């Protein structure tokens, strides 16, 4: 059998900061654990603390859908490309 790699895209993951389970020492640990639960290989591009609570990462659409269903996840939005005016 052959394996076709499913293309990944970047997502912005918005987290509900106040819903961090107490078992996680920091929000970063919680974000990382949530991400690892849908993809072993995914890493965070940026962790955002001021402008949003959350992070950006590369996922397949299915992984993004799985992540969105986890507790404390507000939304998983595909990245948008902006243009200079």
């Amino acid at each position, binding site marked *: 059998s052959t394996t076709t790699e499913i293309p990944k895209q970047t997502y912005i993951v918005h987290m509900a900061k106040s819903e961090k389970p107490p078992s996680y020492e920091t929000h970063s640990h919680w974000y990382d654990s949530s991400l690892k639960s849908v993809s072993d290989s995914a890493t965070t591009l940026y962790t955002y603390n001021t402008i949003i609570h959350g992070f*950006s990462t590369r996922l397949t659409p299915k992984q993004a859908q799985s992540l969105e269903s986890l507790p404390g996840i507000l939304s998983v939005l595909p990245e948008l*490309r902006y243009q200079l005016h």
Partner: protein
Amino acid sequence: TTRTPEFLGLENNGVFLPESDSMTDVIIGVLDTGVWPESKSFRDTGLGPVPNGWRGVCQLNSSSCNRKLIGARFFSMGYEATLGPIDASKESKSPRDDDGHGTHTSSTAGGSVVEDASLFGYATGTARGMATRARVAVYKVCWIGGCFSSDILAGMEKAIEDGVNVISMSLGGGTSDYHRDSVAIGAFTAMEKGILVSCSAGNSGPSEYTLSNVAPWITTVGAGTLDRDFPAYVSLGNGKNFSGVSLYSGKPLPEDKLVSFIYAGNATNATNGNLCMTGTLLPEVVTGKIVLCDRGINARVQKGEVVKEAGGVGMVLVNTAANGEELVADAHLLPTAAVGQKAGEIIKEYLLTESNPSASIIFGSTKVGIQPSPVVAAFSSRGPNSITPEVLKPDLIAPGVNILAGWSGAVGPTGLTVDNRRSEFNIISGTSMSCPHISGLAALIKSVHPEWSPAAIRSALMTTAYTVYKTGEKLQDISTGKPSTAFDHGAGHVDPASAIDPGLVYDITADDYLNFLCALNYSAPQIYKLAKRNFTCEANKKFSVTDLNYPSFAVVLQTAQSGGGSSGGGSTVVKYTRTLTNVGSPATYKASVSPAAESVKITVEPDSLIFSEKNEKKTYTVSFTANSMPSGTNLFTRLEWSDGKHIVGSPIALSWT
């Protein structure tokens, strides 16, 4: 920039509008393509130490930053994750600007004074940013492949954490609900921290509903022209002459000799050959001739390159209906004149009927004092606001056509790879250029009124903007040649000298914006994404988008068939509540409204407001009683409060859906 300081009244006979000592404490953060730190616009002569509390860094060589350019960062992880590693032979993986756009916008907002600035002799003068003594920090979030929202969010986050006071963003992308739009989300956090965010409205005009960056906590800036022109003339073999514009500076065509002239559409085998797209012109037909190309699809300067590559010796670039008579000048690689649609049609008729057509292009020098000016640029994106029609956008217009400002040393003025010319300044157009004018002017107001909120600063800029020329005629829209409307120019054209002393302001707090989101029926998670805190819309409170204390009025009415509002006798009544804050001396203000039409009655209650002390707030209600009109009807008028010294103006747009 040259000319805009005089045009905006910042400079009169060489005397600048005074910048307060606190100006040097104001920091403008520019998210763009980076910066060319060697530009003279970033010299720090006369500036004191970097403001206390600045937390930014310089990711260029430490010697590249100084007391003017106090910070420079880059954000590429989102870009590289999507498009692969940055090719260092094509762009710098650093805050260095390989494009020119970021150097142009940042120098427009806060550049230092540079004498004898020009683009190859065009637009010569003393160049300066709007806030010459403000500090500039750049955040490179845009690359050859675009600007990715993960990088934009990271850049905005760092700008906020670093301690900027104004954020300038000349970029946009589509229209999403506020809780899905990274720029809107980032701007909300900035606004909560007292940072004004100024964004370009977009270049998708003159079609309606084309605005981007329409969140009410963002200042949305459209573009107008200056009173400056760069004339060029097209002389035809039949003796007729037409005026156009050009920034060409190389070897001219022979003045005493006409050259064979051909329409690109007749020098191609491609169906879109009239547009002078790459590889579409036939060299055996074009060589040695002047070629007429139609505007559209590919870049204007690229059309010139295509003509030159095919052996053409000159180009006449003709506007289509989308651009009308708007003439945007470019530093083309070959002798070129850009002409309006009307002239273009006559020239095309000549080309198609004359057996041996010929022409010549003659170049003039920079001219100022062109009237009328400003006129709304055809490309400037237009309202109504497609996300929230009850919030009038754009907020205002500022100079955005043929603007000279700093440029990157890595690229020629056309931005084409074949352009080996270099210039410290370039002349370009777009709402990208008008946005940093407002960013810099906001910094100027912030320095004079450091306690003012972003909404108060925007209010000052909007309520003092003008909508008529000194002659009393209404501002024009160049795409139609007719008076422009509030959907084109918002509150009008910025008038900084008046904005410093507006008399009254419409202030808006973060909680006001949250109530606005409640009125839009945003869910708790959607509000959380913007506010980063739990906010409950009170169950027993009636929220209305018309109660957002905005300095303008967009009144959405429904036609009789679909009903809506409180109807009686075939008319609809819509009420808007506003609160004015006195930021001047004690005074009595009286309201006046110009009639929009006989079918619309506008009443202001009370129509007189007495302010006995500074920061006093007074609330009033505007009632719009309107008969039903056909769907798509728009009417425009204006509400003004005046104490005899100040005029606090608000545009009113009435739309029937």
